[in-house]
């Protein structure tokens, strides 16, 4: 059975879910969406003694328990101890127990009992949380052209396990449908696209849907691969004195290990250096080589150096600055 997540159907594209786990999640989600906020998502089976109820933090939570015939009311217990409703903020009504403006401290195992026999009529494990907000997505081609890596985060803590469905399509109106963006583990906040089209003016569109028992939220992130190229910082920066050269320093570094093909997709580098004690750094470059001789330096002074990398043909952005390395030019003794 195929189901559509409404918020992803921007252009009528289908989002096929092939696994039964995902289908079950969608079914539960659709049931929840049609219920009022304090509705019970009763996923109990006969074997499960404490069926879960997920309700929204800050809402008035209703734990249903019908009063049995002939009884004046029901007795409520939470985590085994009796709930004294007269003293607490909890309100016992005909329908059940109401927790106004529910807070995280009120999570627990609730049970309602026959007042005379003490028999348990209903058990509910209450978990409180929030539906997810729209994820904030970032994608970068750190390892161009092999993969595109995407990460995302939820705007607020929802206190519930949230899964993410990560799919992408190439082209706004792609006929091929959506492909899965591979996550390293279920529930991870990252994924990678391994099938990269080069030289394409057509954007990719990444669709991240956050799903938890209280709701879903979708964000779309369109991008053109060449425009999100950003290598990791260069590695192994070394600053060395040059014998008998009192105003020079030799800098050497390596391209980032995550850049897969530096000989076919060369990088260019910016160098930023500061003399210890002065405030302002000086930035020079870009250069294609992975070494450079700084000149015009003060003998005996300490210099702090950093390097950044960018695709040579100028697509995308510069990397972050590398960790700092320091050195002093050779000084005549």
């Amino acid at each position: 059975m195929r189901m559509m997540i409404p918020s992803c159907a921007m252009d009528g594209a289908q989002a096929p879910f092939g696994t039964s786990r995902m289908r079950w999640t969608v079914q539960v989600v659709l049931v929840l969406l049609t219920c009022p906020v304090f509705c019970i998502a009763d996923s109990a089976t006969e074997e499960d003694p404490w069926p879960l109820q997920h309700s929204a933090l800050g809402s008035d939570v209703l734990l249903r328990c019908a009063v049995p015939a002939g009884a004046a009311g029901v007795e409520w217990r939470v985590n085994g101890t009796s709930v004294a409703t007269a003293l607490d903020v909890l309100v016992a009504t005909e329908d059940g127990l109401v927790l106004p403006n529910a807070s995280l401290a009120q999570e627990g195992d609730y049970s309602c009992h026959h007042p005379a026999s003490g028999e348990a009529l209903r058990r509910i494990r209450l978990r409180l949380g929030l539906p997810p907000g729209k994820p904030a997505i970032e994608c970068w081609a750190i390892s161009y052209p092999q993969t595109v890596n995407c990460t995302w985060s939820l705007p607020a803590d929802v206190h519930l396990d949230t899964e993410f469905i990560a799919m992408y399509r190439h082209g706004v109106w792609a006929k091929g449908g959506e492909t899965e963006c591979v996550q390293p583990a279920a529930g991870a906040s990252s994924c990678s696209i391994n099938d990269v089209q080069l030289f394409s003016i057509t954007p990719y569109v990444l669709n991240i849907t956050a799903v938890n028992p209280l709701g879903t939220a979708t964000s779309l992130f369109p991008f053109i691969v060449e425009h999100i190229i950003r290598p990791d910082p260069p590695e192994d920066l070394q600053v060395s004195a040059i014998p008998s050269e009192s105003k020079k320093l030799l800098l050497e570094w390596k391209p980032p290990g995550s850049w897969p093909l530096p000989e076919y997709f060369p990088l260019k580098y910016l160098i930023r250096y500061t003399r210890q004690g002065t405030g302002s750094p000086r930035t020079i470059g870009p250069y294609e080589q992975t070494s450079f001789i700084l000149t015009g330096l003060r003998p005996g002074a300490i210099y702090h150096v950093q390097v950044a990398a960018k695709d040579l043909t100028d697509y995308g952005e510069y990397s972050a600055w590398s960790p700092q390395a320091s050195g002093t030019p050779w000084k005549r003794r």
Partner: protein
Amino acid sequence: MIPAGGKWGPACLGPLGGDPDPWAPWRGGWEHPRVGVSWMPGFLREGMGAWMPGPPHPPRLPHAAGTLLLCLVLAQAAADPTANTIAQAYSLARLLQADATDLLQAYLSAQGPPFSAPGFAAPALGWAGVPGAALPFPAWRGLGDGERLRGNQVAYAAYEAFLAVVADDQAQLHPGRPQLLAHLARARARVRGLRASLGAVMAALGVVPGTGPPLVAMATANQASAFERKCRGYVVCREYRAWLGRTVRDLTLLRAKYLA
């Protein structure tokens, strides 16, 4: 400065200048503000999406210095003829790549709305016969030298013809824009230069030139409406720039392969 010996063909073209060549190592450095603005994409809209064209703009040199640099580089590469031809073609492709971004912007500005809207892009728009550059990375990597170069040869033959069509269209649609027409003519001349350069690379590597598919009959080119012609010109300029991106990568690969 004329380098001694060797055959330079179209390489040391005086007026081209402007693009610093990465073959020539920079000595002494120069202050350079951080380059490279990556624009976060705009929100998707129905129909014409608002995308950033994302120009890769290499820093520019004055004309004379650029030409001098080009000649210096070619002098360095004089010893090895294969490396020499690849170096020439690479330099030219880099030059054309920067110029193609300017051409696309100039073209869009001249067409009026909706093309002239800032950030205009219509990636779903195409035109039959205009060669597209896109291909999956493993396919690009696995191309043999022959296939790789013939792909370029066929594409630029088509672009030379299409740029002529676009120039004719623009002469009719916007006769009062001599700068755009000059830009298109310059692009066409440079494509001819690039084709010659690529031909030299093919000869140096012993690659047999292909015949390629027959060009779309240009007779039907005149049956398009004014709006369709503007669309066609946009597709040509956009795909031309994308192809130059591919050619630069192709030549970088060949340079790495044959320079060792």
